């Protein structure tokens, strides 16, 4: 009781409730807290992106397998056959890294061609075939096209994350990984 009375005398004289509440603004964590915070957030975002990818693939197969449609199994079989063929071709006619060496030019030229000269699909295919002349061109464009989807950031994010983990001793920082 005595202590309470002392407090009353210590802090009084023109102080309003609003001013008193403003003391709460001074309760702020230091820079080391934010370093830990960023690291934790980074890991949670990374986990979310990976989980989303996994559940996306899982959901796709679940939908196909549980679908009552008579076309479900043939579609799944076709996808698996196409996947198998793609794998075989990937290992057979030229190394895949080569396809990644000049992606930007190729997409730019394809995009430029489609936008500027030919709105039609025929012209697009012709341009596409003319632009490289190699058998692997379609595969290149398809893989690059898939990176340009709205979810592409996630893919790149995961790739960067894996790169930063393996390449730089597992240290993740917000600025680096994105």
């Amino acid at each position: 009781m005595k202590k309470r009375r002392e407090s009353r005398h210590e802090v009084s004289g023109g102080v309003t409730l609003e001013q008193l509440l403003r003391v709460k603004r001074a309760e702020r964590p230091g820079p080391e807290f934010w370093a830990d915070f960023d690291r934790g957030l980074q890991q949670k975002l990374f986990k979310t992106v990976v989980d989303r990818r996994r559940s996306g693939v899982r959901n796709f197969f679940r939908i196909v397998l549980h679908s009552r449609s008579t076309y479900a199994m043939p579609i799944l079989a076709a996808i698996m056959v196409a996947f198998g063929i793609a794998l075989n071709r990937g290992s057979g006619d030229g190394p895949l890294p080569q396809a990644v060496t000049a992606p930007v030019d190729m997409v730019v030229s394809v995009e430029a061609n489609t936008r500027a000269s030919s709105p039609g699909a025929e012209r697009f295919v012709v341009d596409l075939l003319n632009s490289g002349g190699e058998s692997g061109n379609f595969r290149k464009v398809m893989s690059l096209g898939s990176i340009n989807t709205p979810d592409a950031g996630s893919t790149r994010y995961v790739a960067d994350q894996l790169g930063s983990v393996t390449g730089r001793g597992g240290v993740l920082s917000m600025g680096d990984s994105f």
Partner: protein
Amino acid sequence: MGEWSNARATSEAAGIGAAGQVQVDDDLALVARVQAGEMAAFDVLTRKYRERIFSIIYNITSNREDAADLTQDAFVRAFTSLSRFKGQSSFFTWLYRIAVNTALSHLKKSRMRRFFSFETINEEMAPGEIVDTLSQKSAGDHSAQLAELQEKLNEALQKLSPKHRTVVVLFEIEGLGHQEIAEIMHTSEGTVRSRLHYAKQQLQADLQSYLS
């Protein structure tokens, strides 16, 4: 300190000032970039709002460790829901709503086991008038006096219901306007005003000994 006054300035009623409008536009541009797949833009948004989001959640939960976790969770929720953000409200109102909901649902879940842990007050940031009053009235240790004041203040805030506390936190500590708080809490402006009035009465009564 300026941060909070800016927040009040940008949010007060419908009269968003030029600076506030630029901020809103900047956010929308960043959101559009994230929606287009540019993750670095989300990094910018995180850095811009993390202190404020942490402060809201911390002052609602009164636990710094929980607040850190919940702030991260709020940002993850924002990230996963960003594709559904249509720009009908400003980004920070939307983000604040996520933060408040995250904090309130955490409080609901952990009603039976609540622990408090507080940040230490940064004396340099404490309001001048409080520090002056402490200096005038006593020659003792300011840190100890501020710590005691902080304890009483937090005790008083804890006596309020989560919804009343949230309104006080958003208005008095974060500096938001009534209309914006109403938008964040999915309620009417009148309800916000009445909750604020009631909460302040309670706080006045609890902190009577500290007020003139």
